[in-house]
């Protein structure tokens, strides 16, 4: 198994000894705990709770939550480095492991100090999952058009509506949910809350059968007149859209890293196979056509890693990186699709068989083009940010 490049000879991307130690720990967990179970969980659609629990124990679960609340408190750069390692072991397990980051980020960004302390501290003290509920059956990309209604009633809200494709929902103990106080207001009506699972009226649906990421769990969540106190609102009425978008600004870049990890696994499998499989009297890796594929795969992954780490560096430095993070997410996920596709091609007929690891990687890569803002939406964002620079 080829080693992942740790740095790039460029000081801004080189890893410190501390980072290498974290990377190594995540790598060990991914390769010795996650990878050996990946195929079985994929085949049977199992949710390996013991692995998630172990990941939590090691501090791999609430990477973005500051340590004062009991999380790991890592920079986005370090989060990306770890997510890439985990995804090398299994993309689906990684989706479930990092779903807490997505679900808790709105509390970090939109919550008051009191809310952060009172919710996150007990939450991080034991192994628990949280879910981020934005997408609805009627639409995901157009978040301003969501329909889940929050009706003010005294010092609480009564929330009703349905969310779909919610990662970890059947297992979550806490939900962050995006609602509207008035659909006619569109973005300006979006209001965010956090709500514990045991609140009356929250009904997660059954686990969906998915193409990939089958070790993760995804379902609908119905909110049937759920009474949520005003004290659980994140920010003011109408702040929810900004909270959601700023959350996705933080979590988009790690999806680029997740895609890169899947792609790197595909390249490592394909390169090793190409030296071992023979045709026409030599290893297929000595045929130039295969070499061209491997060269392109490695280049795409290198570029993905640079884009991702660059966006993370900017965000860690407090800069706006909407453009760069959208570029990183869309490029890395498209690259992962191409790399995993070529890995199947290099494996030939065996690549198409479930007995070999690469077809799973292709199915897993696909999701990275869709969730946390589809690549079409990323490109809309990139173009918008780009054209701003040309307007006077």
């Amino acid at each position, binding site marked *: *198994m080829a080693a992942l490049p740790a740095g790039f000879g460029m000081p801004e991307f080189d890893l410190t000894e501390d980072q290498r*130690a*974290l990377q190594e*720990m995540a790598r060990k967990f991914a390769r010795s705990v996650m990878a050996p179970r990946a195929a079985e969980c994929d085949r049977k659609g199992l949710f390996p709770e013991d692995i998630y629990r172990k990941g939590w124990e*090691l*501090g*791999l679960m609430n990477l973005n939550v500051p340590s004062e609340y009991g999380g*790991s408190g*890592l920079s986005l750069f370090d989060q990306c480095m770890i997510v890439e390692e985990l995804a090398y072991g299994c993309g689906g397990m990684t989706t479930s492991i990092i779903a807490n980051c997505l679900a808790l980020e709105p509390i970090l960004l939109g919550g008051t100090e009191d809310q952060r302390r009172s919710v996150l501290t007990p939450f991080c003290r034991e192994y628990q999952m949280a879910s981020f509920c934005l997408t609805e059956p009627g639409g995901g990309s157009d978040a301003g058009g969501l329909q889940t209604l929050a009706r003010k009633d005294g010092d609480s809200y009564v929330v009703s509506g349905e969310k779909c494709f919610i990662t970890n929902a059947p297992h979550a103990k806490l939900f962050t949910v995006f609602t509207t106080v008035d659909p006619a207001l569109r973005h300006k009506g979006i209001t965010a809350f956090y709500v514990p699972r045991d609140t009356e009226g929250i009904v997660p649906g059954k686990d969906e059968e998915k193409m990939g990421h089958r070790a993760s769990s995804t379902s609908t969540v119905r909110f049937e007149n759920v009474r949520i106190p005003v004290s659980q609102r994140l920010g003011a009425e109408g702040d929810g859209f900004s909270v959601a978008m700023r959350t996705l600004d933080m979590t988009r870049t790690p999806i680029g890293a997740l895609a890169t990890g899947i792609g790197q696994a595909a390249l490592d499998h394909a390169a090793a196979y190409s030296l071992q499989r*023979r045709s026409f009297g030599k290893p297929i890796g000595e045929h130039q056509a295969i070499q061209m594929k491997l060269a392109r795969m490695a280049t795409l992954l290198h570029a993905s890693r640079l884009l991702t780490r660059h966006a993370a560096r900017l965000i860690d430095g407090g800069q706006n990186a909407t453009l760069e993070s959208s570029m990183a997410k869309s490029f890395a996920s498209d690259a992962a699709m191409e790399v995993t596709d070529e890995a199947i091609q290099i494996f030939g007929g065996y690549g198409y068989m479930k007995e070999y690891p690469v077809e799973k990687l292709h199915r897993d890569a696909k999701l990275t083009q869709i969730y946390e803002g589809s690549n079409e939406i990323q490109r809309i964002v990139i173009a918008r940010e780009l054209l701003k620079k040309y307007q006077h």
Partner: protein
Amino acid sequence: MEILVLVKPVPESESRLRPSPDGRQLDTEGVKFVLAGYDESAVEQALLLKESVPGSKVRAVALGPAARAEEVLRATLALGCDAATLLEAPPGRELDGAETARALALAAAKGPADLILLGKQSGDQETGILPTALAARIGRPGFSNVLDLRWDPGSNRFRFARATEAGEERWEVPAPLVVGLQQAWNDPRTAKLQNILRSRKLPIDRIPAAEVAAALGPAPRESATKFLLPPPRTGAKMIEYGRPEEAAEQLVRILRDTARVLP
């Protein structure tokens, strides 16, 4: 209980090894050195003892080039060791087992340890000399190939087994002693992320190269003259097949006609 656990930085098992340009030793350029093998189990054993005997302290000790030894010691701190001592290896000097024992005796002399734990052999050179050489050097009872080490507070003794060719010995020994551990049964723990970060900031006590060199005495009379990698293995025969039955058929043919191990 004061426990010293000795750890050696060894090349990561996946590293590509090659001889140095002068052909006399291993080329360590680009090779990553890690805590591994029996040493990793020894650290786990030390931590298990610490957890079972309240008030215990574990100090990890490594001998080697500073950067290498430091990384391994940081790994032990992240796992839960309380302190670490780094013995800087005198540059350019290859140490044999007896010299390594002399160097490590320096660390043992710094404080009264009830137990000095180490792997029964290192993960790279596997000479297996050190547990007994060190015990002899510091004048304490030494045991190697030790299994199932426990502390019995009732009798104030360590209880353990030794695996020998003839069978298993059971021992009860009071502190202080030196134990070379033989096992991988204790499933070494993984360091938590927060502990890795915390351990990076902990101090490491250092014994400088000059002090280590002085303890070694005169240069050894023997030295390695050549470092060779095992020759690449040849003669493997790949079986290409479509169905498993075809593979079995070919295999039987090879075993019968070529290898002649089947009638």
